[in-house]
């Protein structure tokens, strides 16, 4: 009996140890859930949705989650009714006293920026200890705004003259055409609004970016997004670029597929945003799932990769009379067998 109790405790302890990144507890912040605009979940249902959102990989590797409903606005009810109770709980329980790592997806990136900017002030004002946020892992981050949200707001206000492909793109993303009565957090995701929300937190929390350039919508939505995109979010947002732009990569010397080549990447990033990994084949949702969709490359570069000769070369064989064109790809080892999320998690543990 004693032995089985010991084993049970050992198992629980092992489980607890696994729910960490680099030894720090993990808190998840999910993204926009289109069906919420119609179903308008509250209470337990919000929590249930949050659990399902992360079920495939991160849920069982995290200690806590901040779940929120998409029919609300970030600075209003999302924060006051859903984020704030969780922040208080995290503070009271001391979960983040020694440090926490937050993992976000999509709009969770924007919610997180608002949290980083305000949590210390709010908790101090409530007589509680601020959270010690060590870093965030932002998958398919939407903190730089989502052009589709601007378009959805326009579709919702009536579609007399709108292009039919645009309406199709919005309906593919949202599952249906939105109505003007409630577009909730889509208001916050409009590019101008998103980029002005807590644009520059004082706290220097490193924000690690993981971006994809696949699509779940056969490229239909991508026609309305600047540069490369993951079917929902343009690369200016997922990479954390300082400015909106039509970027083909998070890097200026590596393409999304790992090809070493001169690309139209951002010249600067939002404060303390660091692009880490990217992959051509991962769609918006794929980045937090548990299956390998494509090989993964690094979104940052050593200076020597910027040397033109190293990017690609061509040569002419005079004797035989043919050209050799060489393309070089830099790819994370085993990334064809391991999901992007698992690569990150394994690297951290």
């Amino acid at each position, binding site marked *: 009996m004693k032995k089985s109790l010991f084993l049970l405790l050992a198992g629980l302890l092992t489980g607890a140890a696994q729910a960490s990144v680099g030894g720090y507890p993990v808190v998840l912040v999910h993204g926009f859930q289109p069906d919420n605009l119609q179903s308008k979940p509250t209470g337990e249902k919000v929590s249930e949705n949050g659990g399902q959102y992360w079920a495939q990989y991160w849920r069982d590797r995290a200690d806590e989650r901040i779940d929120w409903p998409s029919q609300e606005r970030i600075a209003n009810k999302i924060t006051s009714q859903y984020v704030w109770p969780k922040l208080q709980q995290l503070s009271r329980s001391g979960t983040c006293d020694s440090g926490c790592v937050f993992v976000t997806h999509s709009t969770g990136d924007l919610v997180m920026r608002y949290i980083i900017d305000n949590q210390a*002030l*709010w908790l101090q004002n409530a007589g509680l200890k601020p959270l010690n946020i060590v870093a965030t892992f932002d998958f398919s981050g939407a903190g730089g705004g989502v052009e589709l949200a601007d378009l959805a*707001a326009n579709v919702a206000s009536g579609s007399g003259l709108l292009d039919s492909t645009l309406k199709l793109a919005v309906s593919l993303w949202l599952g249906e055409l939105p109505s003007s009565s409630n577009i909730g957090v889509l208001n916050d995701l409009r590019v101008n609004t998103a980029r002005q929300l807590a644009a*520059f937190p004082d706290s220097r929390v490193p924000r690690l970016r993981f971006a994809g350039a696949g699509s779940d919508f056969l490229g239909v939505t991508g026609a309305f997004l600047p540069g490369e995109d993951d079917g929902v979010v343009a690369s200016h947002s997922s990479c954390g670029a300082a400015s909106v732009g039509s970027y083909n990569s998070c890097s200026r010397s590596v393409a999304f597929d790992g090809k070493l080549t001169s690309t139209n990447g951002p010249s600067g990033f939002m404060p303390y945003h660091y692009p*880490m990994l990217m992959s051509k084949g991962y769609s918006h949702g794929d980045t937090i799932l548990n299956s390998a969709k494509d090989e993964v490359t690094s979104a940052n570069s050593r200076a020597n990769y910027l040397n033109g000769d190293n990017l690609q070369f061509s040569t002419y064989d005079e004797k035989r009379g*043919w050209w*050799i064109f060489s393309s070089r790809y830099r790819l994370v080892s085993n990334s064809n067998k391991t999901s992007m999320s698992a690569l*990150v998690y394994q*690297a951290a543990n």
Partner: protein
Amino acid sequence: MKYKKLAITITLLVVAVGYGIYRYTAEPTLKPSLAVAVAPVDLVSVQSKVPSMKPKQITVVEKLPLSISDSFQLMAQAYASDLTLPAYSIPLSANDSTLLNPNAYIPQAVLLQDGASASIVLPQYRFSFPEPVVVKLEVKGLAVNGASVSLRSELAGGTEVLVAKTMLGSDGEWAITLDAEEDWDGPIEISVTFSAKGKKQTLKTGIEYSHPTATITGVGDIRAEGSDMLIPVKVDVELAGYYRLRANLYTADKQPIALLTGSDKLTQGSVVLDLKAYKEVLAQYKGPYVLSTFVLERRPAVPGELTQYGHSEEPAYELGDFAVESLSDEPWQPDEQEMQRLEFLQQMAGD
């Protein structure tokens, strides 16, 4: 062993393709444009492009293996570099367009039928009472018969129209200047409705309109404080609260130097909020200096409260000359949490 077999296979492929090309190719007419780069690469595949009659090229794809820890290492180095300067004084360059224009509005074009497009164009994102709001509608590829604009609050229950006007225009560009009213405060939705081809279309966007909760009225004498040039900014506070001021420091000829940030709990009345410029960011620039591009926020003290904004009486204030050499040289020390973050990133990098 596996790689050896692969290499042999590839070699055979190269030879086969090469031989084929050799058999059918024309005489060379071009010279090499780049030298062959020699690198320790993992040659994993060869693709040939063989035109039906005169094959001329092959494409070689090489994969360079990458360890994920390399990527973390680079990021750790970047973060360590960012920590060498204080967060309250960040160097600026002419390339930092967003930090130099923190109130920019980015028009979002909407695709219409038959390749036409339309966008709402605004001069800025945040407005401060009593600033008028100038709204433009730009339409390409479509003849617009008429356009109107209306504003309403985006706050819950904000269904009441704040103002509605007909826009004036021609040649695809319609515009109106909306004079502000007392009750404009907070996030506001702008709706522009236009008609063309017998149909109506509405475009929407959002702005922030604020009744200033505080006003920057001037700047006191700058002085040295340790390794910082201290800039006392005079503020008339109407609504007490937690304030954060961001402003850009420029040279007299408008070269950007640094983004400065100061935060404090301010009481109602005339107060001073200090900004500081760290010696290292000033080193390359001689005075006189100018302070401009103000963003004065009254931060939400509790969750659910919205950020409010102040404004400045003048767009810029001259600070005069300053002896940078009078500042002390002690290096900046990141705080404990920042060091912990750096250690975490270094740990991820396997350092």
